[in-house]
């Protein structure tokens, strides 16, 4: 079976970490885009189709929760997985209440990450599938001949 790559957007101000993660994800066949802060993240979402955003909660400038709120406001279908450090689990719960799909503790376990990513991807696919179905029904009904 051919794997359809997940379009992942990694958002973290720690370059080393982001690049390492990106390499591993790419190795798995995912399509990875990098952003180093919240603002950049939103700009990328504006331009590209992204399935899952992996978002660090602690960032200088626009922090994780702000970025998440903005993502959910402007791109409600995009799924977000939060990266939390020690002592920020509370924020992770808050994030999930704001619509983040799940959270990961840093240093993230890679297997854990892939499982959650798959979950997020699935959830987004399901939503898209419902939209597609709705559109198809709508079109078919509109054409009126079938």
């Amino acid at each position, binding site marked *: 079976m051919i794997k359809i790559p997940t379009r992942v957007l990694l958002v973290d101000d720690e370059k080393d970490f982001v690049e390492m993660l990106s390499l591993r994800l790419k190795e798995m066949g995912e399509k990875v885009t990098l952003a180093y802060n919240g603002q950049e993240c939103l700009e990328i979402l504006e331009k590209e189709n992204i399935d899952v955003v992996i978002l660090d909660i602690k960032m200088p400038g626009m922090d994780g929760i702000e970025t998440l709120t903005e993502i959910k406001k402007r791109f409600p279908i995009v799924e977000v997985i939060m990266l939390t450090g020690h002592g920020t689990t509370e924020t992770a719960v808050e994030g*999930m*209440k704001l619509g983040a799909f*799940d959270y990961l503790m840093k240093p993230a376990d890679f297997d854990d990450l892939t499982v959650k990513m798959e979950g997020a991807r699935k959830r987004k696919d399901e939503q898209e599938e*419902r939209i597609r179905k*709705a559109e198809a029904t709508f079109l078919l009904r509109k054409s009126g001949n079938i």
Partner: protein
Amino acid sequence: MEFFNVLVVDDEEDFVETLVNRLNKRKVPATGVLSGEEAIELMKEREFDVVILDVKMPGGMDGIETLREIKKVQPLAEVLLLTGHASVETSIEGMKLGAFDYVLKPIKLEDLFPKLAEAFERKDAHDSKIRGAKIKKLLRYW
């Protein structure tokens, strides 16, 4: 199925009342309101799992506006859009804004129920993750 909280938002009082009655009769706790504004007010106080929202409401907030507000107040509440034939496109737009799905008017309970259940399932899945996270957080402090 576990019981879940439903909020019905529609400007037709008779409809809201009857649907709420029927849901209650099926042991689904449901509340009805007649406008977007009322819905938002109520949601600021109480948590709902699924909102059944009429897309087309005359005067005040329309369906899409209400949906946006709902997603702000309770991002995790799943929204089922109630739509007429003329406003299917609006509903699709709504789904792109995060609404779970849409149901065509006039609705039959048989059609509505499975979608309600699906929406609740999704909500529940998320909720349980949050519960898990909370538990983990608690465990950490031990």
